[in-house]
């Protein structure tokens, strides 16, 4: 794994916007000098590194599925701060194996040792467009004969094809609150892959979803019944919304992507459960729910935080924390291992899982120790 400088393509901004990255301006804090998409650098990996990472990702995913079963069998849902009333339906969703499409592991990796799991964005993962499309077209433009760890596009199409979906169109729901366009673009891309898989699709705003109190079903603006709903709206928000009880109750007759049981993966209590189940596993860092115990340095992560907010790093040298309003439902205490330093920048590997298989990589860099909304996405390629 190396970090290399490269010359941006002429007109790169127009190119990436035409390919769907409209939010590279809008989603990025304006005071930053560095653009969100930065092709003046890229990472290179050897094929062996990619093969190793791929198998580690698939092992982590398999361990995570084991953890869901474990949490349900041992009734550990309180550690995840799930509302009690929703628990039976979360369990039922898992027992039915309600179908899932995708997720993104965030990994600490420096090319020398095993990747370490930082979190699993298993419910509402983003940076999909830049991972699947933008860096792929960059590769084809800049290194036409090069290779990349990226089969996201066709894996998504294949996944839609194999899903056991009910009749009627699949609805893709974004929220009107998304001011950056990131969500609508991500959902637009997912919708595109579903269309290419032969599905009939409809876009709808979460706010416009209607509840038919007589028919006990959700409907769209045209009064069509919603049987398949692909959302980028976190389950913990949906559960707490006025329609939450209906949404949870209807899972038996609807397909939500991602499914309800992913509440047990997109929650950082997972990190502590994994460490309990697989202590000393090379891809895990020690993590606890009851405090930092004997960790020499640790990071406190809110169970349901987003974008690196509300975190606190505690080391013998001092503490560092990020702003945010998360943490009401509790924290996990994970060993702190600083992100590796490449020319003063710290990459986090976002490793994608489609279905149950590793499917690609997206890298974000920050100057600080916590990857937040100031990070930049940089492409990668595989070198012979």
């Amino acid at each position, binding site marked *: 794994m190396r970090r290399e400088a490269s010359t941006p393509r002429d007109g790169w901004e127009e190119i990436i916007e035409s390919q769907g990255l409209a939010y590279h301006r809008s989603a990025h804090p304006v005071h930053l000098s560095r653009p969100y998409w930065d092709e003046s650098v890229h990472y290179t990996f050897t094929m062996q590194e990619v093969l190793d990472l791929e198998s580690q990702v698939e092992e982590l995913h398999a361990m995570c599925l084991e953890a869901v079963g474990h949490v349900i069998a041992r009734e550990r849902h309180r550690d995840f701060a799930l509302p009690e009333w929703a628990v039976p339906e979360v369990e039922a969703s898992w027992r039915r194996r309600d179908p899932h499409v995708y997720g993104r592991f965030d990994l600490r990796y420096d090319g020398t040792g095993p990747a370490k799991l930082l979190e699993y964005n298993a419910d*509402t993962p983003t940076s999909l467009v830049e991972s699947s499309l933008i860096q*792929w077209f960059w590769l084809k433009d800049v290194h036409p004969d090069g290779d990349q760890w990226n089969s996201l596009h066709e894996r998504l199409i294949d996944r839609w094809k194999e899903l056991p979906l009910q009749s009627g169109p699949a609805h893709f729901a974004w929220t009107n609150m998304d001011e950056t366009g990131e969500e609508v673009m991500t959902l637009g891309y997912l919708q*595109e892959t579903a269309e290419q898989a032969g599905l009939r699709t409809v876009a709808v705003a979460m706010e416009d979803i*209607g*509840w038919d109190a007589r028919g006990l079903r959700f409907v769209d603006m045209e009064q069509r*019944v919603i049987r398949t709903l692909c959302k980028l709206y976190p389950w913990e*928000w949906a559960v707490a919304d006025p329609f939450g009880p209906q949404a949870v109750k209807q899972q038996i007759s609807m397909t939500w992507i991602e499914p309800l049981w992913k509440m047990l993966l997109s929650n950082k209590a997972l990190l502590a459960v994994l460490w309990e189940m697989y202590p000393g596993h090379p891809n895990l860092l020690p993590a606890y729910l009851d405090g930092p115990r004997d960790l020499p340095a640790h990071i406190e992560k809110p169970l349901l935080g987003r974008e690196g907010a509300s975190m606190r790093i505690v080391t013998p040298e001092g503490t560092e924390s990020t702003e945010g309003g998360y943490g009401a439902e509790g924290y996990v205490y994970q060993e702190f291992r600083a992100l590796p330093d490449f020319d003063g920048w710290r990459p986090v590997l976002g490793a994608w899982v489609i279905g149950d298989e590793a499917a690609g990589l997206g890298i974000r860099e920050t100057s600080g120790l916590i990857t937040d909304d100031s990070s930049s996405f940089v492409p990668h390629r595989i070198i012979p």
Partner: protein
Amino acid sequence: MANPEPDPALPPHRLAQGAASQQGKPPGKGKGWSSSAITLGTMGLLSTLVIGFCAAQDTFADRVTADCVDLNSRQGDGSYQVVDDDRCDDHYHGSHGAYGWYYGGARAAGRVLRGTTIRPANAHISARSGTVIQRGGFGGRGSGGS
């Protein structure tokens, strides 16, 4: 903007045309690492839609009532016979084309008039009879990607 779906009649995106020559190739088999060919049908179009996206949100949109009507029942005064909402449902198995939603009409004696069969843009629509469609039960929290 109610719906970012592209117009299917539009020609393929120029990127899609570039990729078209690769379409005959089989996709990566088994454990392939990389995409063999990507066609982009709508992403560029979506991208331009996003620019105007926020401006077009309809927080203060009108509320419009809808009635399911028998479209063949139009009389001289322009009124339609109101029928059960189920007949306008997507999964009604009767003669589906004969029924449709009628928006913003005035009800009188089982008929409805002075409305339109064209769905108003930027309006929250609720059916009048029996079916109670509540909306707005999701959302209002910000963007949820992670």
